[in-house]
């Protein structure tokens, strides 16, 4: 199988936009290096993005891209070398208590709650720590338990629950507060397919219901695609794309068309390569399948070329790009990488 470079997306325009006045989160010029001398590692390099109030932004990137350091720097867990973070217009380095007053986070790989307390006790405790009288949000807690299928387990110690349930409790304890800016790092980690589907559906519903601003980190592209309004993609400590899911998926307006025939020879293939952006060529016995990235006008041109070469088509398909294609295209060591 031969694989060509994936088409480059132009979806990083938003990264250079000025943050909106009502942005819930503004990150500007964030930089962090760990270590010193030759051993120094640049974890985050001049990262800037903003998140509008009530929107859900996915933070994507391969391992070591700088996502976790960025989130930790936003949350004050890591002191950046340069740059600033403003939450609700308040600089976190100048007034941390005020800036984090309405912020909560679910961090990857951590319990985030107390396993020896029951589910309900955790919700009450963390609501209080988050600055809310738990008696005033009892109804919300009951609804949260219901939405996350935790009602039956509400009075059981978290330590006795399955891993998936624990993950849900962790999320519930974050949503139990009155935070309006929430950071979720791998919220579906360890969940089975059904639980993951339930969680992403309920998460989106809760977000809309409470107008939450969410920064969501996940390796699960389906979660990002289902829940997020916008995606910030990082690689090597830098933001390489920042746009809405729709625009990232539509890319530069091209689609991928796949044609298969037993009549496509080397000479025709060479002509097609010169004229079109051939993204993939596969052969299966006599039959050759050619994938071309082009717009609808280009597709008509392609069929004309094939007709002129007297090619009988076995099949014609359009291939829909998903977020994983976009992500791989941007983070591969190809042209897509900035």
């Amino acid at each position: 199988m031969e694989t060509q470079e994936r088409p480059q997306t132009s979806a990083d325009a938003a990264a250079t936009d000025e943050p909106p006045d009502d942005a819930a989160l503004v990150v500007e010029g964030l930089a962090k290096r760990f270590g010193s001398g030759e051993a120094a590692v640049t974890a985050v390099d001049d990262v800037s993005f903003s998140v509008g109030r009530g929107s859900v932004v996915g933070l994507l990137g391969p391992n070591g891209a700088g996502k976790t350091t960025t989130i930790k720097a936003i949350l004050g867990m890591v002191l950046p070398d340069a740059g600033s973070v403003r939450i609700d217009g308040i600089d976190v380095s100048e007034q941390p208590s005020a800036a984090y007053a309405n912020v909560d986070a679910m961090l990857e790989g951590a319990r985030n709650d107390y396993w020896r307390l029951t589910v309900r006790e955790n919700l009450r405790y963390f609501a209080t720590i988050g600055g809310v009288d738990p008696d005033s949000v009892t109804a919300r807690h009951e609804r949260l338990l219901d939405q996350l299928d935790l009602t039956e387990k509400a009075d059981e110690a978290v330590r006795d629950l399955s891993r998936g349930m624990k993950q849900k409790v962790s999320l519930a304890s974050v949503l139990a507060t009155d935070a309006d800016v929430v950071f979720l790092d791998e919220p579906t980690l360890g969940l089975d397919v059904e639980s993951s589907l339930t969680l992403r559906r309920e998460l989106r519903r809760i977000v809309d219901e409470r107008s939450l601003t969410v920064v969501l980190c996940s390796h699960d592209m389906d979660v990002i695609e289902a829940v997020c309004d916008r995606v910030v993609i990082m690689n090597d400590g830098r933001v390489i794309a920042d746009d809405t899911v729709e625009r990232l998926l539509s890319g530069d307006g091209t689609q991928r068309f796949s044609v298969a025939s037993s009549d496509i020879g080397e000479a025709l293939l060479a002509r097609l390569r010169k004229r079109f952006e051939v993204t993939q060529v596969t052969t299966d016995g006599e039959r050759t399948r050619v994938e071309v990235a082009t717009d609808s006008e280009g597709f008509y041109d392609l069929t004309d070329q094939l007709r002129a070469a007297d090619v009988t088509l076995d099949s014609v398909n359009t291939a829909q790009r998903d977020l994983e294609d976009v992500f791989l295209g941007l983070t591969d060591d190809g042209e897509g990488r900035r």
Partner: protein
Amino acid sequence: MTGQPAGETPRPASYYHLARAVLVREFLLFVRYPANAIGGIVVSLFFFGLLFYGGRMIAGQALTDSLEGIVVGYFLWTLAVGAYSSISNDIGSEVQWGTLERHIMTPFGFAPVALLKGVAKVVRTFLTSAVILAVMLLLTDTTLQLPVVTITVVAGLAIASVLGLGFAAGGVAVLYKRIGNWLNLLQFGFILLISAPAFDLGWTKFLPLAQGSALLQRAMIDGTRLWEFPALDLLVLVGVAVGYVVLGYALFEAATRRARRLGVLGDY
């Protein structure tokens, strides 16, 4: 604040709610998982039994003459060890569980939360140490004065200084991670502090526990009430307590700040 579904208006939590949440959590863990507390009591009494019966075999009358002082000192030691280990281990556990971050981000600020958690630990330690004291008195057939208010205030201030050490140790644990067992060795240093001659060797009264230990001995052996102590002695007691809490918390703050700079806060 976030948009709310109809019929629900979240009210802000006050310090009362915060104190209630922290104390209720401590209480729930205490009653729901009594094995830890009972285990601590049994181990403490086992070591006291070794000290008492072993000492009587070796030292005989000498031990009997100073038995009251030993019981009071051991009572204070169990209090100090309980408060120190619970606060330093608690910080280490919170880092490991990812809950420390949530306490740091609280709108109350971390200091009041940490202080309330410290108070909750001290209250719990008082309960277990009271049981240990009662068993020690029965075991040794000793009689002590038990002016509750005086004991609570003097012992409370004495172990406040240990809370400061607990915060400092917690800070070191945040920075250097799994060194809890080494830090627990410090507990044996408390024996020296408790037996320091605070009244005879003036400077020692500024060490953690020393002044509190000396005053507690007077209260429980001689029956001296709180208001009968010289004002200067009480002032030193309060000053040492506040001083070590502030110093310990400052060290904790410095350690967490360094951990944030190194990016190791929460990385276990």
